[in-house]
Each structure stands twice: as C-alpha cells, then as structure tokens.
C-alpha cells in the first residue's frame, strides 16, 4: 500500500496498469490526447506487482485491478470514473489543479 501511495505521489497523474491490458492502453491514449504527462507503472513488470494488484483490487472493489488512476496523489478510480468526470467537465479542473495540465 505504501508503495502505491509513494508511487502515486511522484507525478501529477499516475496510472497503474499491466502491459497486456488494452483498457489501460485506452486510458493512456486518453491522457496523452489531453496533453497530460502521466506516469504509468506496469504491475506485471514490478516485483511487488502481485501484491499491489491485490491491494488495488480491494481498494476499488473490483476483480480487475487495472487501470487505476491517481491524480495529485489522490485515488480517482478506474476507466468509468475517469470518463464520468470528463463528461461532466470536472476532470479538466482537477488536472489543472494537480498541475498536470496548463491548457
């Protein structure tokens, strides 16, 4: 858990994903198109990845732990949460506040 928190605070936008997950790819593409400089951690490439996956799964209450997005060190959620925020227009202010976006 600590590792997750630590990693999450390293950048304005942090995404935990797995290299084979295509939904993770979609989320990354999304932030890229938004002009956000994000940091992605591939849990399948991390030695403690398995534990982190389980922790994240518990945190979200889902079986698939990835992708998980942290903005400004705070947990935002998975793809659907990000999409909802974006459609309601709340994502951009959040990104600006975290310093991930200047436009």
């Amino acid at each position, binding site marked *: 858990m600590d590792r997750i928190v630590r990693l999450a605070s390293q950048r304005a936008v942090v995404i935990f994903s797995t290299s084979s997950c295509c*939904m993770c790819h979609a989320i990354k593409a999304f932030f890229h198109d938004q002009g956000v400089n994000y940091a992605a951690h591939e849990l399948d490439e991390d030695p403690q990845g398995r534990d982190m996956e389980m922790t994240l799964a518990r945190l979200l209450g889902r079986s698939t732990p990835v992708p998980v997005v942290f903005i400004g060190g705070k947990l935002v959620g998975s793809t659907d949460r990000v999409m909802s925020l974006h*459609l309601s227009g709340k994502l951009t202010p959040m990104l600006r506040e975290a310093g991930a976006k200047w436009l």
Partner: protein
Amino acid sequence: MLPATAPLPPLALLPQAFCVVSSSGRPPPLSGGTWAWRVGIGPWGGQGRGWRSWLGLAVVACSLRSPHHHRRVLPLLGGAASSKVWFPFSGVCAPSGHLSSDPELYVEFGLRPAEPSNMNSPSAQFLTSTRMGIYELNKHLGLWRDSFKVDSSQNTGVSTIVKADRIIDQRLEDSQELPGPAEEFDQEANKPNDKISRRLAQNREAARKSRLRKKAYIQQLESSRMKLTQLEQELERARQQGAYVGGSSGDSLVGMSTINTGVATFEMEYGHWIEEQNKQICALRAALQAHASDIELRILVESSLNHYDELFQMKALAAKADVFYLMSGMWKTSAERFFLWIGGFRPSEVLKVLRPKLDPLTEQQVMAVYNLQQSSQQAEDALSQGMDKLQQTLAETLASDPLGASDVANYMGQMATAMAKLDALVSFVNQADHLRQQTLQQMYRILTMRQSARGLLALGDYFQRLRALSSLWAARPREPA
C-alpha cells in the same frame, strides 16, 4: 269483467300516478265493454272520508276476496275532470290476500297505451309497473298531504289532471299516441319533457357505450397481463434449464446452451424493450404537443432515461453471455448496424444529430453541449484506440510461425492468451455503454425539462426512423436473378 263489488279502501296515492277521478260514483261505461273505477284518494284520515277527489292523485286498487282470483287485470280509467278528458290508464292488482287491513296487500300499478284494443286483453303488456307495499303507500301519502291542501270544495267532483311526476311524463312519451283529448291538454307540457327525455336517453346510451368500452379495455389489459406473466415464466424456465435453443448466433453449438440462453433471453427482452420504447416516444410526442407541464414531462423524461438504463443492463448481461453477438449488432436492424460503434450508437454523433432539435438554447447551454460533445469525442477516441490495440494483440497472439516447431503446449498457451484477450472485449462494450449512459445523464442536467423531453423524443424518433429504413430496405424490390 265484473269488478269486485267491495269498496275500495282508501289506499294511498302512488307518486307515479297522476290521474285523479272524482269521487262520484261509477263512471259511465266505456267503449269496449270495459268499465272503470274511478277512485280518488284523499289525505289519509283527512276529512274522515274514504274517498276524495284529489289533485293529481290516483290510485289503483282492487281487492279480491277469492284467492284464486288473485291476479286480475282491471282496466281502469281516470281522467281530468276539468276538461272532462279521460286519460286512460290501467292497472293490475295482485293482492295477495284480503284487503287494506292486510299489510301484505300489494298494488301493482302500470301504464299502458290507451289503445282501445288493448283494453280488452287482460294480458296486455304494461309499460311500467311498480309495486308498493301498503306502508310504502302510506309514506307517499304523507308527502302528498304536506304539499297539498285539502279543499272541501274538491268534493264536488271536479278534479284536475296534474302531472305528479316526471316519470309519468316519460311513460307518457314512451307510450303510443294518446287519445286526442288527453293530448291536446298535455301538448304544451310535453315539449320540454320531450327534450329532457331524449337527452336522458342519449345519456343512458353514452353511459352504456362507455361502460362497454371500459369493459373491453379491461379485458385487453387482463389478457396482456396474462401474456406477460406467461412470458416471464418462460423466461425464468429458459434461464434455469438452459435448454432453450434459439437466437441468431451463428456459432451456436449444441453443448453451448448457456450462451444461447443468454442470447435468446436478450433477443426476447430487446423486442419488449423496443415495444415499450415506441410507446414512450408516442407519449412524449403527445405530451409535448399538448404543452404538458414540467411536472408531467418530468415523469416521462425520467421513465425514458430509466428505460435506457434497462437496455444497458440487458446489454451487460448479454455481453457476458456472448460478447461477439453484441458486438456484431445482429440484434439491431441493418441501418442501425451501419452506425455501430462498440455495440451501440456513438454518443458524439448522436449529439451532433440532436443538437439542432434542441434550439433555442441559452449561451450557457450552447457551451455546455459543445463541451459535452468534445468530451464524448475524446473518450470515444480513447476507447477506439484501446479496441485497435486489442485487435492487434489478438492477431499477434494467434499469428505464429507456421513452419516452426509447433507443439501442443504452445498452441494451447496461445489459445488461452487469446481467450483472455477476448474477455477484455466485454469491458470495452461495458465502457462504451457507460459512455452512452453518461452522455444522456449529462444532457438531462444541461437542458430544461421541456428541452430534455424534446431531446429524448428526437433521439427515439431518430432510431425509429433508422429501423423503419431497415424494414424498407429489406422489403425493397429485388431484380430477378
């Protein structure tokens, strides 16, 4: 036909009677050999006389002593003394026993057309009849007593016709031609009563018709309800047994009955969904045309949004059953399939189509809708890129060196990976539906109630037209092969 000779007891007045007779003795015999009693009734215990000529009172009474004559038709006549017009009526008396002292005495009173020919037949039909027990008669008498004064001068045998009751008038109207003298007396008073009775008849007719309509509607509802419960039972059974083989899934195998169940279930439910959708569209249209209030529109708008939510739930279940089926759009019509994007409509495209229908919009709303459109577009692009990546990795997983040393483990491993990849497809469909749902919710927040109603109507109408187009296309005349 001899009358009984017993004196008529001062029974009572029947409110529906109107003829009164003088209290003189027997009337002259009438044509046809019948004769009549003329009876008058006075206030009960009034002047102490048994018989009184009385305004607007008549009574039919008879008494019979012998039991086997318990039913006898006595043609009776009464009339107006003032113009010496006789209004014929007749009655049937069916006393059950003795006389007035017997509380069981009933008087059956009726009116019938005054055709002379009728008079002779004891079994003539009576237009109306009423039965009263002796105590009831007393009650009515009491009422009359209050409204009329006893005038001893009436005793001289002059009496007048008074229409005591409108019901009598109706009976008059219903009956056939009245004899001339009576008619000319009553003509004036008949006209407004004509209208009244006609109107009443019309009302009765209308009421009857609406009762029939209501009955038919209720029967229809009942049968639909039964059908619905039957279908729900079938559905439940199909789900449990998994033996329902159906659906248009091309790759259905005999062993994979569970998948077919999911597909078949979805198809059936989707059919119902479409039917309900059509009804809701009509309701929205009607409400908007009728300029319904915001409160009424809200009900329709919210039920419409809930209806879409139901569709997304159904699709989620179907995706678990067979995601390829959902992705193929086989459950949609051909024209809708042309616009398919990850198993459904593309939200930004739909927003573009509907946007002009929502005018006029405020500045703020214009901005909000534009932003929503943009956000949706961006989200869609992200999902599309994810889908492309999925295709790519699936292709890579399946593509192997055909010339290389193929071993079973490798092959199985490949297939396992590919299968796992396909699971991701389910999450993409779910995300796409989530996007559609969020777009609808956001629009509801941006727009006023009326605009939302218009928007939902436009959306539903748009897809209805696509479906109609598909039908036309399917039915188009083909060139002979």
